[in-house]
């Protein structure tokens, strides 16, 4: 019988419990002001290769540029949002950042309890349980002009069709959205607008999977669009959209990723429309450090480097590169404004 050995293990463990009860004295103050920044991820965690990861990248960059103490809490479930935000708030952090619209209600609740603590939330606002923005004077919303990023990848899709550089060249491209909600439609609006601008004879198919998580649902919509002749597919459906990228790969057509650089998701990904959450996070921290925190919405777009695109598994032709630079410059200068609503 192994119980003697187990009993020994138990004694060792008991000893450890005693030592830890006496330990744990760390810390100590610093004379100059160190800003304390707390980041709370949503349930995607730091390795989601998207929002949470990018927010952490922005936090790390801020850490090297400013005198800050940066702490991260990963939420294991939706139950953790309020306690995680509250913990940072009770410790008088100078800025508490919530990642993603899933945390809207939690940020709304906690920001009301701690009016002297600054909060920032990516892609959302501090709301009540009915989704109404509470407009607390200590909450900053970090929003994105998704249509700017959508327009840039729309230029790529339209240019490829017009110049016969796509796979089928039937002047048909597609976009697969998750659910028909504003952030999704902003992307698609910019995409369709720019594709039509590049190639007036183009047909842009728009479909919705009504899902953000199940790749199979998006694969179905993508396959239907491919069967209708589409040879560039833009996914705007989060995890569900991986099904779009994979379907495009199987059918040997091109695909376009969303939010983060999705180059590695599938070889068919030629470009990605980017929401630069890292830039937004960094900017929010910079504002607090410079004593320039502002409540309300802060919008990230091409003009301030908060939205953009990446070229992925594609050898970018020089003419297309020139076209992209031209359009990007015109959007920056205000000569062109991608629409927020999907054009007819």
């Amino acid at each position, binding site marked *: 019988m192994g119980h003697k050995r187990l009993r020994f293990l138990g004694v060792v463990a008991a000893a*450890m419990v005693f030592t830890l009860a006496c330990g744990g004295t760390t810390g100590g103050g610093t004379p100059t002001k160190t800003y304390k920044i707390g980041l709370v991820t949503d349930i995607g965690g730091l390795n989601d290769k998207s929002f949470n990861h990018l927010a952490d990248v922005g936090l790390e960059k801020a850490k090297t540029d400013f005198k800050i103490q940066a702490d991260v809490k990963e939420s294991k*479930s939706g139950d953790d949002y309020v306690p995680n935000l509250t913990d940072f708030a009770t410790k008088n952090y100078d800025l508490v950042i919530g990642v993603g619209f899933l945390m809207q209600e939690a940020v709304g609740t906690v920001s009301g309890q701690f009016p002297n603590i600054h909060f920032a939330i990516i892609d959302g606002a501090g709301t009540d*349980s009915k989704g109404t923005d509470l407009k607390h004077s200590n909450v900053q919303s970090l929003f994105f002009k998704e249509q700017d990023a959508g327009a840039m990848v729309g230029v790529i899709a339209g240019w490829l069709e017009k110049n016969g550089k796509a796979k089928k060249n039937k002047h048909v491209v597609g976009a697969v959205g998750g659910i028909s909600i504003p952030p999704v439609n902003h992307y698609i609006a910019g995409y369709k607008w720019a594709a039509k601008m590049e190639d007036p004879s183009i047909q842009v198919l728009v479909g919705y999977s009504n899902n953000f998580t199940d790749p199979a649902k998006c694969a179905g919509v993508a396959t239907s669009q491919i069967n209708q002749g589409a040879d560039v597919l833009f996914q705007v459906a989060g995890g569900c959209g991986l099904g779009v990228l994979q379907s495009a790969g199987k059918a040997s057509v091109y695909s376009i990723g969303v939010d983060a650089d999705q180059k590695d998701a599938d070889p068919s990904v030629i470009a990605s429309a980017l929401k630069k959450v890292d830039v937004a996070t960094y900017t929010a921290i910079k504002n607090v450090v410079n004593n320039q925190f502002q409540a309300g919405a802060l919008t990230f777009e091409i003009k301030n480097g908060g939205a953009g695109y990446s070229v992925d598994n594609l050898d970018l032709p020089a003419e297309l590169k020139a076209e992209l630079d031209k359009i990007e410059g015109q959007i920056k200068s205000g000569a062109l404004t991608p629409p927020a609503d999907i054009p007819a």
Partner: protein
Amino acid sequence: MPVGSVLFAFVIGALICVVTGANPIAAYAGLVCGGLGIGCTQGENPALQISNTIVFFIPLVTTGVAVALPFRAGLFNIGAEGQLLAGSVACCAIGIKFADLPAPILLPMVLVGGMAAGAIWAGIAGVLKATVGAHEVVTTIMLNYVAQWLVRFLIVGGPLELAPGTSKSHPIGAGAQLPTLLPADNSVIIFGLPASVFRVHSGLFIAVVAAAVFAFLLWRTAFGYEIRAVGQSQKAARYAGVSVRRTIVLTMLIAGAFSGLAGAVQIAGVDHNLTDKFFNDTTGFDAIAVALLGLGSAVGIVLAALLFGALHTGGAIMQSDAGISSNLVLVLQALILFSIAANFVGAIRRGLPFGRRASPELPTELPPAAGLMTEAAVPPPGKT
């Protein structure tokens, strides 16, 4: 000795810390501070930590009971999660539909509605077991999926959704909400913080009463005796005149009512609406560990739920204070379960005489996890 399982897990957890270059003392200090509010060094508010732990503790007790009761009848209820979700849905639907009713009417309605929905959800598995002999492990697992997707359907483009794309339901009426123990008021300062920060709610009493009812039912009623008789040996119970089918169905109904109550209390006391967090809620699965660790006794379940609640709350503090990923907490929970399943408990109980006395109700040669194996080998009731 479940304490041995816990210590075993913590020792292995400490080794993992050391091997990966982290400081196990700092890690566990963070856990203790976060979970119990003791020995905090970085400005955590002890009262807040205890409040958060209790919020997680409440549903774990009630669902823990819902796993432990069928266990006494030799049934393995893996479906506490699905039953909890059914209870949450019923509570929400009633709380939204009759939002204008006053609390004395609406609050009992949502709680009883949640219990009824949970009972039906578990009752399906009970009836199938008693009639066609479908194994409850399989049916309850499948019903978990049905419940999870039902929640998805209801709040993603479904009838309970607040507005398109919100992935959550309308909030329940004020009369359906369980009051918090401290005033839910931002302007009242208690323990140095706005009182509304303390989310601990009156569901605490419901959970404690549920544990007491469980103990009373099991040890002080004739039906409790029948449950235990069926659990020890179905043949003997049948020979003694106990209806095995009736006992199985009733046990599952009662267990489901406990789980459904947990779901209703969670909505009424904390969330006040169905959100997408219920898509990957794990309370009902943690409850299996709680019931096993608590050796199926009311006191044991309360203690085990306290441990798991404290681990949950402590994990986040450990991550921010000690810089160790809160995933370590999941490792610890898994190790606790593993050491129970791997029969360390039985080995120790056989070796130590006082362990036998501590839980005389369990057959020494059949530790909890082994019950699953023997039950699987028993032919469906009523077919012999």
